[in-house]
């Protein structure tokens, strides 16, 4: 038995925050309070775009204890698969979308003595909710926020005002100001935790540096939402459902499965949580693993695939779905 806990919400307000960044405010249609959440959580937003049902994850950036509305901020991506373009260009105030319950795959370690947040660009959003919660609960944190330029950067002024320049450091590429990662990571007290959210290159760079400097793995946290990369179209045979479907160039297997009316489990839709792990019964090509969940052994075994982001380089795959 599946329990449907999705919530129908109205777009109460759309705000242009910076160049190419819009903020969306969602309020429940039934007027009930939204659930409290923990900083770092995201929701999956389901949007009806013509015949397509788009489902994308977005970090919640509003105060976790504000039950009147949720807010997300969305960057208009140039190579949009359609989600950010839809939100920026088609969605208007008063429209209805469906959101999931909050899901937190990027929580802070509650034992941490100190928390360092590093954000690149739109990666700031989960930290906004985390800082709100931590400020209230008396946590010790600092934010290092890298922007391309001040026009593209969202919220840097608000955050500096709210938490003070001693806790919020802004670095602007255009002004040749960069996060001094090595200096920062070399000199932290025991019990410090590091959290990074931003472009993949930034996350990898900071994590490698931290590992190299001897930081324990347990103290390093990052969140990346991987959009399913495009690829050549292929056929997927779904054994249990007894269906054969086509996975399009700009479609994930999960999306193609859902479009065929089959319910498959998912949580993050970004290759991180493990919920959509699916058994591969047969395939005639190479699996392209784009997730960060499966262990290297699992990836080479050819028997498991995360259908939210990974695909087949070949003609036909048979899945236990």
């Amino acid at each position, binding site marked *: *038995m*599946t*329990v449907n*806990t999705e919530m129908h919400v109205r777009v109460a307000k759309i705000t242009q925050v910076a160049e190419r960044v819009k903020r969306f405010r969602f309020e429940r249609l039934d007027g009930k309070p939204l*659930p*409290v*959440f*923990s900083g*770092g*959580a995201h929701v999956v937003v389901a949007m009806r775009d013509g015949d397509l049902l788009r489902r994308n994850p977005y970090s919640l950036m509003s105060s*976790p*204890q504000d039950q009147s509305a949720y807010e997300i901020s969305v960057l208009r991506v140039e190579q949009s698969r359609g989600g950010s373009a839809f939100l920026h260009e088609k969605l208007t105030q008063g429209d209805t979308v469906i959101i999931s*319950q*909050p*899901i*937190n795959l990027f*929580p802070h*370690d*509650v*034992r941490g003595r100190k928390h360092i947040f590093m954000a690149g660009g739109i990666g700031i959003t989960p930290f906004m909710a985390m800082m709100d*919660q931590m400020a209230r*609960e008396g946590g010790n944190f600092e934010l290092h926020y890298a922007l391309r330029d001040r026009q593209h950067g969202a919220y840097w002024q608000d955050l500096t005002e709210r938490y003070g320049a001693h806790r919020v450091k802004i670095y602007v590429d255009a002004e040749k100001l960069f996060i001094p990662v090595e200096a920062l990571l070399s000199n932290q007290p025991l019990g410090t935790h590091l959290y990074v959210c931003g472009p993949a290159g930034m996350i990898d760079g900071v994590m490698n540096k931290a590992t190299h400097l001897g930081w324990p793995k*347990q103290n390093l946290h990052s969140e990346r939402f991987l959009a399913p990369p495009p690829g050549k179209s292929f056929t997927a045979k779904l054994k249990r459902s007894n269906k054969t479907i086509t996975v399009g160039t700009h479609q994930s297997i999960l999306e193609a499965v859902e479009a065929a009316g089959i319910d498959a489990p998912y*949580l993050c839709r970004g290759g991180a*949580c*493990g*919920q959509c792990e699916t058994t591969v019964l047969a395939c005639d090509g190479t699996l392209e693993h784009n997730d960060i969940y499966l262990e290297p052994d699992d990836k080479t075994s050819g028997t498991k695939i995360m259908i939210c982001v990974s695909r087949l380089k070949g003609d036909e795959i048979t899945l236990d779905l």
Partner: protein
Amino acid sequence: MNIKFKQETFRGDFTYRNSPENIMRFPFPFHEDKYMYAVNMEPHVPAGPKGYAFEHMIDVDEHYVSEMQDRALVLKEDPLRCQALPHMMAGQWDTLELLMEQQAANYPEHFSLTKNADQWHWVNRPLGIDQKFTYGDASTLPYEPMEYITRQAQGDFCIVDQRDGNLWMDAGMVTTQADWSLDFDIGMNFLEWHGPVPLAHQMGVFDRALKFLLNLQQGKPVRRLNWTMTINPRLDTSPENYHKWGTDRLTVTPENVGDKVHLRCELQSLWRLPRSNAILFVIRCYLLKMDELVTVPKWARRFHRVLRDLPNELADYKGLTRFRPTTVEWLSKHDDGLPTSPGIFPE
């Protein structure tokens, strides 16, 4: 619905009994005529006949007042039954909110909760409690929030922190346990505290259960039933008090099986907590003596078959070895060999 709360004991003269209505709401843990471990988790949603233990997600029954009195006695003798590591305060407040909201919403005759921003007013009529406090400020309550509310809620409670891809037993109120100790397990992770369970590790049960629980979602609690057997209706069968109850298992005779031997069922529910992202693990214990169990013919037939065919390792681990033959023999007289219907509910 107005519950008539009983006055009874779980020690000494053991006056605990189930009313006929309460027998019918017992969460019988066997859905077929045999038992083996499984990751038998299902959504924690209302199920079963009206009034069943699954009607409300935090169940209150006729034993509420007496169970709370027994808990107070246990805590007086051994305060370490309730512990919370310092980083669990957000989870404590989450727990308080969940239990107050559930009890007030489903049993408005007995409990009420009024919120005015962070100024809360809680009324517990069965226990005669009227408390105004500030949500988030532990100094406005007589105990820390988890202890405060779990002195007013049936069942044991563990708040499990989630980090490093594992779950950690970092807070709990445990006074009605089937022979495990919070004081021993506190700070352990999921695989560590399940260490003593036989067979299940090899079956991969715990790896799968952990994977499942790490992705437990807010708003979608799950439940499972677990069971053992207890001699005399004793809630506190703890390792700390083993000297008080261990020898009870030698007192079972063919004459007293019906009165002394109890099926002990745990209704375990797991809830993702909103502020702390921790998991609340509720272990609610129900006791049913054999005389009461056999008033439901389906349960009499099935429990006889389950107990008779239980693998020895499991019987040993659950501590049934001493009295199993006597009990099976007694139950056999209540099993006419007819087939049983699928599912746990009485026919």
